[in-house]
């Protein structure tokens, strides 16, 4: 298996996964979305709130704020040595105390742990009028996206099979397919139609080119054919900022490995028992 990046930033990555099965590509996608843990506010204790928003709406908005996560510092509450009571290694505490008139931003949440800060300081939480006040304490926990979308580390996370475009020798370079392609993947070459430089990965495999070729009266079979490669996949992974994309990918691989190992252990146990 091989990964080659065409783009790798802090919060977006585009890469091709080579020599993998469709099952593995989907496992990888699902793990990144649903199994990679991040911090998100889970418990809110409201001391005072006379803003126009209900306490429930306010705490829901707080829950959606992404928080920078250091996976080596935090563990899930259920797996913590404190036994789920709540300690500094399974929860991050924030306090917020603002008096109006003003806009309350996510930057007004004061973290107890200076490392676990909000990704952005200017997410509007609530607008306060004169004499309005919000005082609360929020506790962030580590959990994963399969529990609630607020713990989901990725935004747009998906893949498609790598397109394979083959152009036969009987192509007469009529250009019908070039015109029909909605993503401008093709161009007219000297003797036949060719793939435009660096455009192959843009192909959505809509097969309009095949139809256009047939319509031009070339015969029983189109001279151009588009097929998905079942061993190569183009991935796009976008992070919400709580973890860098690279960390999401590496920890997703770690999770897959652990799950596969535990499956082997269980199978060994069962076969040993017989």
């Amino acid at each position: 298996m091989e990964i080659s990046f065409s783009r790798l930033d802090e919060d977006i990555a585009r890469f091709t996964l080579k020599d993998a099965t469709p099952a593995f590509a989907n496992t990888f996608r699902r793990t990144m979305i649903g199994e990679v843990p991040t911090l998100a506010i889970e418990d809110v204790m409201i001391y005072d709130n006379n803003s126009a928003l209900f306490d429930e709406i306010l705490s829901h908005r707080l829950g959606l704020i992404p928080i920078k996560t250091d996976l080596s510092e935090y563990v899930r509450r259920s797996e913590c040595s404190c036994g789920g009571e709540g300690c500094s290694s399974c929860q991050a505490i924030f306090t917020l105390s603002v008096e109006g008139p003003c806009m309350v931003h996510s930057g007004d949440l004061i973290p107890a742990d200076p490392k676990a800060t909000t990704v952005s300081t200017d997410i509007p939480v609530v607008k306060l009028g004169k004499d309005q006040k919000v005082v609360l304490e929020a506790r962030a926990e580590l959990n994963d996206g399969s529990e609630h979308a607020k713990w989901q580390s990725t935004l747009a996370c998906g893949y498609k099979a790598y397109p394979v475009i083959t152009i036969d020798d009987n192509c007469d370079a009529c250009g019908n397919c070039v015109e029909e392609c909605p993503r401008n993947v093709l161009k007219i070459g000297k003797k036949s139609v060719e793939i435009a430089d660096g455009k192959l990965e843009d192909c959505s495999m809509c097969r309009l080119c095949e139809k256009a070729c047939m319509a031009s009266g070339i015969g029983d079979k189109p001279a151009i054919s588009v097929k998905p490669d079942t061993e190569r996949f183009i991935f796009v992974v976008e992070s919400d900022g709580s973890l860098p994309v690279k960390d999401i990918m590496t920890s997703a691989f770690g999770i897959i490995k652990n799950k596969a190992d535990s499956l082997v252990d269980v199978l060994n146990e069962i076969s040993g028992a017989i």
Partner: protein
Amino acid sequence: MAGYKCARCKQKVEIDLNVRCPYCGHRILFKERGAGIKHLKAR
């Protein structure tokens, strides 16, 4: 029982028989927030 506050004159009001501010006669009252801490799940 939680107290109420008059929407016009902002004075504290107790409701017994009529929903009406005894100080200014206004009929719109706000319920005051309880003193306790409210625990919520952020979901």
